[in-house]
């Protein structure tokens, strides 16, 4: 029998897509402002709003009477970090939607497919070999090359006679990821000064992000989201299987290729900015599919908002609430790992009874 997943119960949840979008959008704006106020130096919500409004409008009278340091903390320290976390969360969630959609596998995300490890491997290699071929973009570029190369190796390993099995795909991802992890360990062993940089890649962090990071991730996430929405209906139809999608006028092979490359690009940019942050791409599309159904056009938009919100909250917890900062990648893996087990278990049961 065919594998299936999605909303259990007899009907879809009554939460409507427009409602959820508006609620999440409001939650994201609120979370950004509240999180900006949180931290070692406490700044009230009203003060945060005044600082941001002053910068946006150029009207300095809005911040008269405020500690001048607040402006620096808000605009140059916290907001870049918070917005990067938000956008990386969106990007990873959109990647999850895309990969789960094309590979018809609910366990697919940049982390479980080994793509994140591939990007980290590429970045580590660039760091240790002191690659400067592409200037300041050398590390992100190597991360992208590593992500793409890993994706192709994983796809090659899991295809037999042109067929791709969902389970071997995850197995291949795990195997390739393990080999890459060993490679990264070796580089860590060989590296002297850069070892800290490499460890940063493996555990993920949003510390000391700049507006450049925000801009780079924003560009990647918006284009990724755009492509996902553009091919959203094709992606829906591809869930009927390749042969059916072909006969409905979808250029399955081409759409698959475009989306795989787009997903890898977004994943690579995210990893190149923040290091490996797992499971966001896995959890978020699942939860959202459960709430609003599987239509990939809506799913991409809502997942982007929810993924951003989730990672922003996680990063704020580790930055401003926990007594010592836990690497964000560790935190998401601690939460996401058990969730992965749960989905895996449910799917095994479904495969037996369905």
């Amino acid at each position, binding site marked *: 029998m*065919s594998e299936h*997943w999605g909303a259990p119960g007899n009907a879809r949840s009554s939460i409507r897509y427009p409602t959820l979008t508006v609620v999440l959008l409001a939650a994201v704006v609120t979370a950004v402002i509240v999180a900006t106020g949180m931290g070692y130096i406490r700044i009230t919500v009203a003060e945060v709003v005044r600082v941001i409004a002053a910068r946006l409008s150029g009207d300095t009278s809005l911040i008269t009477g405020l500690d001048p340091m607040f402006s620096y903390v808000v605009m140059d320290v916290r907001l870049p970090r918070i917005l990067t976390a938000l956008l990386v969360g969106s990007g990873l969630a959109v990647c999850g939607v895309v990969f789960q959609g094309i590979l018809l596998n609910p366990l697919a995300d940049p982390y479980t497919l080994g793509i994140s490890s591939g990007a980290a491997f590429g970045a580590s290699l660039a760091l240790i070999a002191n690659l400067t071929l592409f200037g300041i973009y050398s590390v992100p570029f190597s991360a992208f090359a590593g992500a793409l190369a890993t994706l192709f190796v994983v796809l090659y390993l899991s295809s037999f006679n042109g067929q791709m099995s969902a389970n071997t795909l995850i197995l291949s991802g795990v195997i390739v990821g393990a080999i890459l992890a060993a490679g990264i360990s070796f580089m860590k062993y060989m590296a002297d000064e850069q070892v800290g940089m490499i460890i940063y890649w493996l555990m993920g962090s949003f510390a000391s992000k700049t507006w450049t990071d925000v801009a780079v991730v924003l560009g990647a996430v918006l284009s990724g989201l755009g492509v996902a929405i553009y091919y959203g209906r094709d992606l*829906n139809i591809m869930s009927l*299987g390749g042969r059916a999608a072909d*006969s*409905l*006028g979808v*250029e399955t092979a081409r759409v698959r290729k475009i989306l795989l490359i787009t997903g890898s690009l977004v994943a690579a940019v995210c990893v190149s900015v923040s290091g490996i942050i797992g499971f966001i791409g896995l959890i978020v599309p699942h939860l959202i599919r459960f709430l609003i159904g599987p239509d990939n056009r809506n799913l991409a938009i809502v997942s982007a908002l929810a993924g951003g919100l989730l990672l922003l909250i996680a990063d704020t917890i580790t930055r401003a609430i926990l007594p010592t900062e836990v690497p964000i990648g560790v935190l998401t893996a601690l939460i996401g790992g058990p969730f992965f087990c749960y989905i895996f278990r449910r799917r095994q049961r479904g495969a037996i009874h369905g």
Partner: protein
Amino acid sequence: MAEAGFAIEKLSFAYGEKTVLEDLSLKLAPGRFYGLVGPNGCGKSTLLDLLMGNHHPAAGTVRFNNRPLANYGRRELARHLALVPQDFAIHFAFTVLEVVLMGRHPYLPRFGAVSATDLAIAEQAMAAIGIEHFQNRLVTELSGGEKQRVVVARALAQQTPVLMLDEATSNLDINHTMEIFNVAQKRVQAQGDTVIAVIHNLNLAAAYCDIMIFMNQGRISATGPTHETLTPRNIGEVFGVESRVALDEFSNKLQVSFHYGN
């Protein structure tokens, strides 16, 4: 002179080293119900895929309405040809109505919404197959037979002059099987559509097909009107079983009986 329908000439196809179809020539005219029969692995599904333009021939040509299939765009092709595949897995929890509406995809502009006409067509298709009462259920919760009927309705919603059924009723009881074949037959007789069906049950094929195509090992071993080609000799040659073909009085159709057991 313009010739409607399919013209297949010297078609060959292979999966890697394995030749599946060899030097196959065939004409399929509109307004006929074709039955494609033959043993497992003889190339029936592959032939359908080549007719659908899902595969490209290794040699030879497939022309549809006098134009090589390769000259059609995918969406254009999907407005002429519909397929009910064998594998009808649906991987995400779409509703029945949503899946049937996917049949309207070849008509919708990229960012266009489903129109009232599309909705009416989808509802018609569901009513024809008798599934309109569960249109709001999730496909992932349907039984194999129910899913198969949803996929047939989706193909009907495509409103194509050619309908291909690849063992479309293998999971269904006789009641639902007849329902689907009756709908297909009506389209052939009333609208001059073409139906090309891969059928394993020879008696079902005998009852519905105007023309039978016997395939064996990637070649056509016999083709022609059912009453001429459905013979013990052709059946023996393709399936290697002994049979008797006789007119059944109750159905007024040719029916096949076999020597069962040893």
